[in-house]
């Protein structure tokens, strides 16, 4: 290998700025535990609500970025005929819980480069009886050969092993995971769309829940459901012309199947770009006003708290004991100290439900809503910066995808007329 190439390798390029890109019109649509409708309903109604909010016609949307686990045999191109639209930019992102941020990154480039003017980014799913069991029975070739035959526990089994290992390695307890789940339920109690928002969750409820797999119990698991999540991507100029309040992307990145030599997962790709995200934005974890992690299981949220720099590796147990994770800073009696970091402010998928490509858009759409000041009872006060991260695709024994972004409100920009 030539030294020239080695030098070239060392100068790993970084993502260009997302300057000039606006995120507008966040929607969360049609949440239901089960539905006889198809995925196209939830995606189509998300699109319908977004263009209504934006005051534009569907033909003004010339790009479509879609994620869904339940759209088959259709794909994003099928939707063009279904919705009778003629986009010039199409993207379908089969990346589960990392899909939202990845869709955002790609759509932003399309808008920056002139490949599209308005891209609708949508994650939508239906949930019909037995459909989740069908999905996990044949999720990938590796699961078919190497994990499903071993007890057929689905993702619960893989995450039970990861959680068990994490607890043994770092001393986290079920109560620590409970602190995350309970704070999220409190947030959901203030977010009407959340499917479990009408129920409270106490530590006793959490600890005494039905066992599912190893340390994983009922309230550590998400509920697959029907629903849609989406937002529109366009230039800042266009958003201003349309009179739409918008959120900007300060930095974003993704990395997949990182740390692949770790025998069992205790970290993911975030560790390899979190610092760059902060460097690019000139802010640090202390400047983040809300954190939306991918919470398919609480242990994964803990990994994100660590890998995104909110605490050191293995220290998330202390972090959740010392930090109020609710949208309003209420510690619920489960955390000490005065620290507060609103976390999964709509309740996360643990309490809202898992729709839209494994809820890959949930935290992103919620972040946009919060930074626009459009959240209602669960509004975080004076929020300027949100960190949202994604994770997904349990191809065998670990989640392969990672993504993260720092978003910013533009309230002061708007007021200042710039």
């Amino acid at each position, binding site marked *: 290998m030539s030294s020239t190439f080695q030098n070239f390798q060392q100068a790993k390029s970084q993502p260009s700025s997302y300057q000039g890109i606006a995120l507008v019109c966040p929607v969360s649509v049609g949440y239901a535990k089960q539905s006889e409708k198809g995925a196209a309903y939830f995606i189509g109604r998300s699109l319908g609500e977004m263009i209504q909010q934006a005051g534009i016609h569907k033909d003004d949307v010339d790009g479509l970025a879609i994620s869904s686990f339940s759209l088959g045999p259709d794909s994003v191109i099928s939707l063009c005929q279904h919705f009778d639209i003629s986009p010039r930019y199409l993207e379908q992102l089969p990346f589960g819980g990392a899909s939202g941020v990845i869709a955002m990154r790609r759509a932003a480039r399309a808008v920056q480069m002139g490949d599209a003017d308005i891209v609708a980014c949508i994650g939508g799913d239906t949930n019909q009886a037995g459909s989740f*069991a069908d999905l*996990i*029975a*044949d999720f990938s*070739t*590796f699961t*078919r*050969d*190497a*994990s*499903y*035959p*071993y*007890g*057929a*526990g*689905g993702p*619960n*089994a893989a995450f*039970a*092993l*990861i959680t*068990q*290992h994490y607890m*043994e390695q770092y001393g986290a307890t079920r109560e620590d995971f409970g602190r995350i789940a309970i704070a999220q339920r409190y947030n959901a109690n203030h977010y009407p769309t959340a499917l479990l928002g009408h129920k409270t969750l106490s530590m006793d409820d959490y600890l005494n829940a*039905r*066992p*599912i*797999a*190893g*340390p*994983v119990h009922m309230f550590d698991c998400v509920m697959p459901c029907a629903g849609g999540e989406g937002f529109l991507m366009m230039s800042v100029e266009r958003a201003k012309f349309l009179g739409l309040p918008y959120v900007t992307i300060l930095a974003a990145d993704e990395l997949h199947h990182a740390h692949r030599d770790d*025998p*069992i997962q205790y970290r993911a790709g975030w560790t390899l770009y979190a610092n760059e995200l902060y460097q690019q934005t000139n802010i640090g974890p202390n400047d983040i006003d809300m954190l939306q992690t991918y919470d398919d299981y609480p242990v994964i949220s803990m990994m994100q708290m660590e890998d995104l720099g909110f605490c050191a590796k293995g220290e998330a147990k202390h972090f959740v004991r010392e930090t109020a994770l609710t949208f309003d800073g209420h510690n619920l009696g489960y955390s000490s100290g005065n620290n507060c970091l609103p976390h999964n402010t709509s309740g996360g998928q643990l309490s809202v439900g898992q729709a839209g490509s494994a809820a890959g858009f949930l935290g992103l759409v919620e972040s946009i809503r919060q930074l626009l000041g459009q959240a209602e009872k669960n509004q975080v006060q004076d929020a300027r910066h949100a960190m949202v991260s994604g994770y997904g695709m349990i191809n*065998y*024994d670990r989640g392969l995808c990672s993504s993260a972004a720092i978003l910013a409100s533009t309230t002061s920009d708007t007021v200042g007329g710039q």
Partner: protein
Amino acid sequence: MADSKQMPPAKRTNLGAQLKPFAEQGELRLQQCLSCQQFVYPPREVCGHCLSGELSWEACPAEGQVLARVDLHNSFEPFYAEQLPWVLLSVKLDAGPVVYAHSSSHAGLEDSGLEVEALEIESKANSGDRVTLSLQLDEAEAPVFVAQPLK
């Protein structure tokens, strides 16, 4: 006891099904790369180390260490649902790959024939334990790995 009509999931890929004759013989084999000599798993089309397409099912050293062990209390398959809790082990083989395995403490699965201690419910392997892995046929005549604690 499981209902005799209920069977564990027998569906495998074409590659995964190639383990069956070795399971019938009780031989532990994994794919080994003829180019870089690494063992790879789960079954794959090309070597995960050097991308060579020349993979061959070869005898693999059977010893490894349990990364984690959990009891499943929920299963999407009736065969397992009737026998809960079902023990699931994640094993890091000394030869390299990470393998999910049944515990040899489960009825219907045989010990490897190697010298092992008498197994009771309490002696199921836990994380950090050394185990030996065997390849067997399950009740659906499908190939599965079974881990047994080393003496």
